[in-house]
């Protein structure tokens, strides 16, 4: 896990090293004299070898100091500090929604395997998987926001003022992010169950006198969850990407918005920091999923 973290931070730093243009120039503006630029470069330590600057930058990041923003002359941490919890909360809510919805629905479908409900479930799954989360966000805003007035579109409530309102408002975007992943999870769990059903141990379970439901709950379900958990590990990264886009739909001041504004005005330290933070969040969440994986599948050596 640490190795991946290390690799990721190196990739991020290297990516921003190859950017055309010199940070010192963009800071001082085009009419700065060469001497001023050289002095600033020296002061910012840009002349030190790449590796030294990398470890220096990494050291700062661990201490939470992501350097200073180019365009706002504030430390990066102050700009994104209060934004990170928003994106993380949204991703957690969507993750919980995926888990809470997909398992019962899949079980329901598994119970009626091959019936009309199963067929209908399969088709609606296909459609739900095909809807991009930001379009879903627009639909939710249109249906629940404008016509049914369940929530006021654009009425973001900061967690400082009213935590319940904050969570309430985040529900809609989280649903928009979660629905495609739920549909995918249901499809995956259903095909995993089908696959496990043909395995020998199911026949052994029947030979001992288990009913179909007993075979399902005592034997098949636990084994069918394994591929699903692997998928959840990978889905975390997609959900964060989804949250960046969905933030625009519900205009939530999360990491996504800051990332976009700093991309358009090439404020690289901010972009670098956000990308690194997102990668860390993804890796941490993958670790949690991995632990979940280990306690279900004993074959993975502890």
């Amino acid at each position: 896990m640490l190795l991946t973290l290390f690799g990721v931070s190196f990739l991020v730093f290297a990516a921003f090293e190859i950017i055309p243009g010199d940070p010192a120039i963009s800071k001082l503006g085009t009419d700065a004299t060469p001497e001023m630029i050289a002095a600033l470069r020296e002061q910012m330590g840009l002349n030190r070898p790449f590796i030294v600057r990398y470890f220096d930058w990494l050291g700062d990041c661990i201490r939470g100091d992501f350097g200073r923003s180019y365009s706002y002359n504030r430390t990066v941490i102050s700009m994104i500090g209060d934004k990170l919890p928003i994106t993380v909360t949204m991703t957690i809510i969507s993750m919980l929604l995926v888990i809470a919805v997909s398992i019962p629905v899949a079980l329901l479908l598994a119970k009626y395997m091959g019936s009309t409900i199963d067929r209908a479930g399969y088709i609606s799954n296909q459609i739900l998987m095909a809807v991009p989360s930001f379009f879903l966000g627009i639909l939710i805003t249109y249906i629940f926001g404008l016509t049914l007035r369940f929530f006021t579109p654009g009425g973001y409530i900061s967690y400082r003022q009213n935590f319940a309102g904050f969570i309430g408002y985040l529900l809609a975007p989280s649903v928009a992010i979660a629905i495609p992943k739920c549909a995918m999870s249901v499809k995956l769990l259903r095909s995993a169950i089908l696959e496990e059903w043909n395995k020998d141990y199911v026949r052994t379970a029947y030979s001992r006198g288990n009913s179909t439901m007993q075979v399902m709950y005592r034997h098949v379900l636990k084994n069918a969850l394994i591929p699903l958990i692997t998928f959840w590990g990978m889905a975390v990264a997609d959900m964060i990407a989804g949250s960046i886009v969905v933030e625009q739909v519900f205009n939530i001041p999360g990491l996504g918005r800051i990332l976009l504004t700093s991309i358009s005005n090439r404020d690289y330290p901010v972009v670098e920091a956000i990308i690194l933070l997102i990668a860390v969040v993804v890796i941490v969440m993958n670790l949690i999923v991995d632990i979940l994986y280990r306690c279900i599948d004993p074959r993975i050596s502890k």
Partner: protein
Amino acid sequence: MLLEIKNLTIEFHDHDRPERVVEDVSFSLDKGEILGIVGESGSGKSMTALAVAGLLPRKKMEKSGEILFEEKNLLTLPRHDLRGLQGDEISVIFQEPMTALNPTMKIGKQVEEALLLHRHMTDEERKAKVMEWLEKVELDDSERVYEAYPHELSGGMRQRVMIAAAMVSDPQILIADEPTTALDVTVQSQIIKLLLKINKDSGVSILFISHDLSLIKQITHNVIVMQKGRIVEQGDTDEIFLHPKEEYTKKLISSIPSVDLRK
């Protein structure tokens, strides 16, 4: 007679034209008897065994004839009553020890399952019965095996666990569908000796399915030779091996590589 099978016929209808897998099979199984069913792949030997165990695949099929056990016809018995017998009176062990056990469930839990379904016992009684049978199938360090997972055991040990799981509820009939095919020769003969010992000690009758004639000769009292779903010949094993009447039986016996050390 413990088990009586009369004119059993099984025909699958899931492909375009119906496929007759078992045709007009009749035989009986006595208490304590070891009856072998031998035949090549596609002869219907496993399908006959699965019919007795009530494990026929759910495909569209036509079943006719009778499988009488304690005056009940297992072919037409409602699912609920059939489940009462499965694992209690009739148990099964399968060919692939590697895949026949649930990979994510502890061995102890899998062996005690038949008791859980068919007997009202406390946890301690159940564990004691399971440990008793883990020792009976000659598994050394049965305590460790109880807590272990299938992937931690060898093929031979897993097959012993399968036998323990099948015998824990003292069934009257044990169906062994090619139990040793996937095992090494040395392990194979140990499992065969174990089955013989269990048959002698507990008097369970065994329906032994195999394609290996030398194995059938070693272990069974009577044998049924099947080809393309039909019984070609049946009777006392030694008698059939000495004077096979049917052409197909002769061909089968002659294809066993004979090792004649006298010359």
